[in-house]
């Protein structure tokens, strides 16, 4: 406990940095994942192929590999940037594949008649998705999306190792190998930090789920 209190500033900064990474990555991956999901259910084969390829690549590559390509592959192609944004991009790409599959399952759960009725009254494909299908689909996928988001918070621990640094998990390396403190209490502090983010996130998701649920 003393270790956590003595280094409270370091833990707090780490928590804020992790939170910052996660908020950007959550917004990015939810938007991108939903777009990819609409690709996957699109009637236009090239879009479907793009969506399928995207999910196949990013869902099946380890996050560390995706991050490696973002942090070292992009500069190799002449793209310069802050490692923070490379890290966030990697996390967004990876998480978007899981978001996509969750959203797609929601779209598939919307009865086919809904889409057919939308087309019958003259809505275009994009209109029917936006007005009819997605609002119903997104309600039903709050629980799986919540799991994906919580997994993303935990995955963000890897981002620190790709030049970002200063996140909650890298607090561990600074305290143990640089200052020689015992590993277990330091890691307990790190674990507590992640719980501070994930448990309220879970509670909030439960509230959102109750608010959005409709009687069918």
């Amino acid at each position: 406990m003393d270790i956590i209190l003595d280094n409270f500033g370091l833990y707090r900064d780490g928590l804020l940095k992790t939170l910052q990474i996660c908020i950007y990555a959550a917004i990015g991956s939810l938007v991108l994942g939903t777009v990819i999901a609409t690709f996957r259910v699109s009637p236009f084969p090239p879009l479907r192929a793009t969506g399928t390829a995207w999910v196949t690549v990013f869902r099946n590559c380890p996050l560390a590999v995706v991050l490696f390509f973002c942090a070292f592959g992009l500069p190799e192609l002449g793209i310069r940037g802050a490692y923070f944004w490379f890290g966030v991009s990697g996390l967004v790409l990876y998480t978007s594949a899981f978001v996509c599959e969750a959203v797609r399952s929601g779209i598939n759960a919307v009865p086919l008649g809904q889409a057919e009725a939308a087309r019958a009254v003259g809505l275009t494909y994009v209109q029917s998705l936006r007005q009819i299908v997605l609002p119903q689909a997104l309600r039903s996928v709050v629980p799986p999306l919540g799991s994906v988001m919580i997994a993303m918070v935990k995955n963000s621990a890897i981002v620190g190792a790709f030049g970002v640094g200063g996140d909650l998990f890298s607090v561990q390396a600074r305290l143990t190998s640089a200052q020689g403190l015992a590993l277990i209490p330091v890691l307990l502090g790190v674990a507590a930090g992640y719980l501070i983010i994930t448990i309220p996130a879970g509670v909030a998701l439960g509230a959102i789920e109750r608010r959005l649920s409709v009687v069918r």
Partner: protein
Amino acid sequence: MHWNAVLRVGAALVALAMAATGCGQQQSLGTGTSTPPVAQDARFEPGTTMAKIANAHAIRIGTKFDQPLFGQQTLGGKLTGFDTEIGRTIAGALGISPDQVQWVEAPSAQREELIKQGKVDLVVATYTINDKRRQQVSFAGPYYIAGQSFMVKSDNNTITGPDSLRPTKARVCSVQGSTPAENIRKYIDPNQLTVFDVYSKCADALRTGQVDVVTTDNVVLLGFVANSNGGFKLVGDTFTKEPYGIGIRKGDVAFCTFINNALTQAAKSGVYANAWKTTAGKVTTQTPELPALDPCS
């Protein structure tokens, strides 16, 4: 294409597993570039570590296998570097020829455990002597004083030392949780620091222009300068002191004294200077003198 990718990922996983299990493997490797003398009539008081090693005619030395210029395994399996030459010199003083030395890989994080568990007789592995480590092991030496320094691209003339980092807003790279990374924080703003898990990633970031400076011990940087085909250079003097010692079992004063005598002897006979010139001396013009040795305790 698809199966090709699958195979490639598979091969990477196998390589990773092999690297993971290869740690701490013992292997006998051939001689290096210089040949330290082997004592023919080595006799030691019974019961000492020296007598044990000399009678068994086998010594196990822990060193780095991936540290250019100090302890690096070549593709042919040979170990070359200043640390391995120092190890061979000590083995020679015990009457053991260089090709009878059993080398054990000693990564930074495992050095104390290897000594405490008796898996090695001594460790020569860019091993900085400090009080925290002295609580777990004893040190002979130091046999070399390294220090933290800076590596930049060859065409960079704005970085001259630690005090030039803040005004130039240089992006500095080092390894997460390492002593050099903590040392440099005094000289820069937090957002100037980029940290990775290994120095090779820092060198890569320097090459692609993602960072401006890499900082750690000068000898580690020298290895990267040597492999950069003139792309990188060292700048500024060292601004810390890292005395490299030889790690042995805690409290083995007799062995410590013996190693210190062997080092002094090697410095007198020119073996020490020769060991440097044939290894780390290839990329620097300076040849170090043997530093003043710490008393054994």
